[in-house]
């Protein structure tokens, strides 16, 4: 039975070994691609197999429960989807592809570790495993024009990342100093007992900083536009989607440390949420490059996720979970289109999507659905997630926050709508047809179905998430 507890991790670990051996050989780009897709596919099944596993490992530093297993399944699913949409890996040269896949797999492994870690040092190590592998993915972009733009992005990413980690470690030292323990379940009662002490609140807030960086919450967002733009489309697809799941999982765990009377942290979260939403949406309005636009819109969505955390309630956390899972699907759907439209792995501007309805009707539909979903228009998942978050936040009396969040929906619609307009109404001029192979078609249809299904029938996932969250403690 212990095997089921650790099955996804073990499997990914073995998979990374396989990839490691492939990196030693020459001209293994093809094999490593097939291997990693196979690993990711089986890993999803392994996660399903251990979905209901429950127990503690490694002296209770590692907890396997419904909460972690949901996230693991989503991370694995997201990983698989990113691999499938970036099958051709246009933006990365052949010689480094095995390494590329290896690091992507390691990053996923780190995230899988992360969502189960319930001890500060384990959290730190898991987070670093996933982050450092990600830092390496960014500069692996093919340097076609000799601009070394991806190097700049990678440096920015790693510098900001290290600072955020430093902030987090500093916060952890406070928590340890105040309580004498690094285990979350022991931290919780002790921190609740000293909830109003400023040091405790500062400690918690600083620990959150590390995950704000991953989730790209204001003011830890500075890396977003450059990294999104500088990294290859496939890398951005990964950075924009899967790590955010891990970040939200850990933010939920850390937010639980906040006692009900810890209103200062709630106020901080509220302010960050509002700043993220306004900053992301206002700057996204003027973007020309679609990846940059999605980066800023991601900042705004991160602000929305915080709406669930400020409630300090199980239902709120569940709403955040639902929202980030929905976001994963929506953003991956966008990147399916971006990666397919991009011919040789170059960046895609919004104008490049002109007349996509003629060049690739299915992709145009996918993009339209995901844009309206991101904008929060029903009947798509974006609306349902937003609605549940707003309901939860208003229930706890955050009226101003809810009104500001609602206003942001109205701001954001403009840039999403511009993409839709370009896609459906503009003339393709001389832009070539886009070839959509069978598998990409299937992936985009599946994603669209999920976007609609989660939007009209959210009950199942919300119930699951609620029971997962309430079982954490």
């Amino acid at each position, binding site marked *: 039975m212990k095997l089921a507890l650790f099955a996804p991790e073990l499997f990914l670990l073995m998979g990374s070994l396989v990839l490691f051996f492939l990196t030693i050989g020459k001209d293994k780009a093809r094999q490593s691609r097939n291997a990693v897709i196979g690993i990711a596919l089986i890993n999803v099944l392994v996660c399903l197999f251990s979905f209901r596993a429950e127990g503690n490992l490694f002296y209770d530093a590692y907890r396997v429960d419904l909460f972690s297993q949901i996230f693991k399944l989503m991370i694995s699913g997201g990983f698989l989807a990113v691999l499938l949409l970036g099958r051709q890996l246009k933006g990365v040269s052949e010689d480094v592809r095995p390494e590329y896949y290896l690091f992507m797999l390691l990053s996923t492994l780190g995230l899988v570790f992360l969502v189960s870690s319930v001890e500060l040092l384990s959290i730190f190590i898991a987070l670093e495993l996933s982050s450092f592998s990600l830092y390496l993915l960014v500069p692996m972009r093919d340097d076609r024009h000799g601009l070394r733009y991806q190097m700049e992005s990678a440096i920015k990413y790693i510098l900001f990342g290290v600072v955020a980690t430093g902030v987090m470690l500093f916060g952890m030292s406070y928590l340890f100093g105040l309580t004498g323990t690094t285990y979350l379940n022991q931290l919780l009662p002790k921190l609740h007992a000293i909830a109003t002490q400023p040091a405790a609140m500062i400690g918690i807030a600083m620990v959150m900083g590390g995950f704000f960086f991953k989730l790209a919450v204001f003011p830890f967002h500075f890396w977003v536009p450059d990294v999104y733009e500088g990294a290859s489309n496939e890398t951005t697809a990964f950075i924009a989607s899967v790590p955010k799941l891990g970040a939200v999982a850990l933010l939920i765990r850390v937010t639980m440390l906040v006692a009900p009377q810890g209103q200062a942290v709630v106020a901080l979260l509220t302010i960050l949420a509002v700043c993220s939403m306004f900053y992301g949406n206002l700057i996204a309005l003027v973007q020309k490059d679609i990846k940059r636009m999605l980066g800023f819109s991601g900042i705004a969505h991160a602000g929305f996720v915080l709406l669930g955390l400020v409630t300090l309630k199980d239902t709120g956390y569940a709403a955040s979970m639902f929202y980030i899972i929905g976001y994963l699907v929506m953003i991956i759907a966008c990147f399916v289109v971006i990666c397919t439209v991009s011919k040789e792995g170059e960046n895609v501007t919004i104008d490049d999507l002109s007349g996509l309805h003629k060049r690739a009707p299915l992709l145009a539909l996918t993009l339209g659905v995901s844009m309206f979903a991101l904008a929060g228009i029903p009947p798509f998942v974006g609306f349902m997630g937003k609605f549940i978050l707003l309901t939860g936040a208003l229930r706890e009396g955050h009226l101003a926050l809810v009104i500001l969040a609602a206003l942001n929906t109205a701001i954001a*619609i403009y840039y999403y709508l511009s993409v839709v307009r370009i896609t459906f109404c503009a003339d393709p001029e001389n832009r070539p047809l886009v070839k959509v192979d069978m598998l990409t078609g299937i992936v985009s249809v599946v994603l669209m179905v999920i976007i609609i299904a989660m939007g009209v029938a959210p*009950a199942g996932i919300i119930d699951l998430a609620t029971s997962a969250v309430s079982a954490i403690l």
Partner: protein
Amino acid sequence: MDFLILNNGFPYLSVLIFLPLAGALALLFLPGDNTARWGALIVTCVTAIISLNLYSGFDPTTAKYQFGEHNAWFPALNICYTLGIDGISLLLVLLTTLLMPLCVLGSWKYIEKRVREFMICLLIMESSMLGVFMALDFVLFYILWEAMLIPMYLLIAIWGGPRKTYASIKFFLYTLAGSVMLLVAIIALYLKTGSFSIPNMMGKAYSVDFQYWVFLAFFLAFAIKVPMFPFHTWLPAAHVEAPTAGSVVLASVLLKMGTYGFLRFCLPITPVATYMFMPYILWLSVIGILYGGFTALAQQDMKKLVAYSSVGHMGFVTLGIFVLNKQGIEGAILQMINHGITTGALFLCVGMIYERTHSRELSKATGIGKYMPIYVTFLTFFSLSSLAFPGTNSFVGEFLILVGGFAKSIPVAACAIPGAVLAAAYMFRMLQKVVWGSERNPDQAWLKSMDLSVREIIILAPLLLFVLWIGLAPTPFLDVMHTSVTHLVAQVNVACLDSVRVVQVMGH
């Protein structure tokens, strides 16, 4: 659930919502422009025929919601899939279902490119519009209310005129911005009552402050949709650029959602606030009537003329609603239907001219009466109806509204009267030019062999039938709404009397 009469037999309402949606899905997989046209026509016709059962099975003696369906949907938040119609929504549902086949027919030749997508958009529109009128759960209502923006946006943005980008984005932004606060208000109401059931929210003793804010959120959303002065600026742009069917749907059904929202939500849920804001809204309505009339008088573009006349006519409807008495509200509901029929018909007429001359300029369409006698006959009847000529449908509606208005406030009603005169002025101006023109008419002889085709007569004839039917014998239409309207007026009055009593008690 005492407000709902469950329908255990054939689920009419669900079928009406999902049939067009299923049709749209089917069209997605069927290639060919003509398949799309015929497919959409068949689906809308079947929907219309099914909807007739609603009228025959409707029980006008009860104010409860009929043909009810009630299923749990999202238990964690107590969201249900609840449908039902009463005397207020019945006619609007029928208006929608009966108009849609005409919209499809009206686009038969007008739409030449991407026919399949166009028909899919129309069918999705039909589903969501019907759902809005039937939903008794606020979340369901909101989902359909917003979801409708997508196909409508695409209708304008893809098949629209030269300034379609501007018009479509303006339409989307305006309506979305209006309804985000509606969402907050819905959630706030849910937190007070514990469910999203619309009838459950009615007649509750909310505090006056709470009612104010909820009312304002409602008002913003619905006033933009109606549109009331000063929120009307999206309307002319959207109407002028939209293709004919889009204009018809927009004018005949979409605008009614705003006034329907007032009736269904503002009045029964926030009666005290309604009462307090009533004078301002009445004057806004009067301004809208006069403003729409004067602006219509100055238009050279026929479509713009009809669009601005809509602002005026909808002003009458809001006036009728907010006089808060039985005649006014019944007149308003009837006028909603009338406006749907008449303005829809006028837009179709303008579209028919446009298909021939490729211009909507009044100056290009002068003097065609001599060459297109059938066309101008129809146009004359619809114009007369638009200016509320006795014997046509709008006369009955406007008359009732003014009766209600005079009973409420003589100055307001007196100020609205010139609106009726203005309507006559701009409609006769248009008619005079189109039918006779002057000695400087452009040569229209080439239109001689291009009078209305059988298809176009089939489109306009049913509308003309209803114009005269409602105009000469409005009883069957008024009868179905009596009970519901009486109930609604009672709801408002009881709540207002209660609050007045509370104030008095506190004063002593």
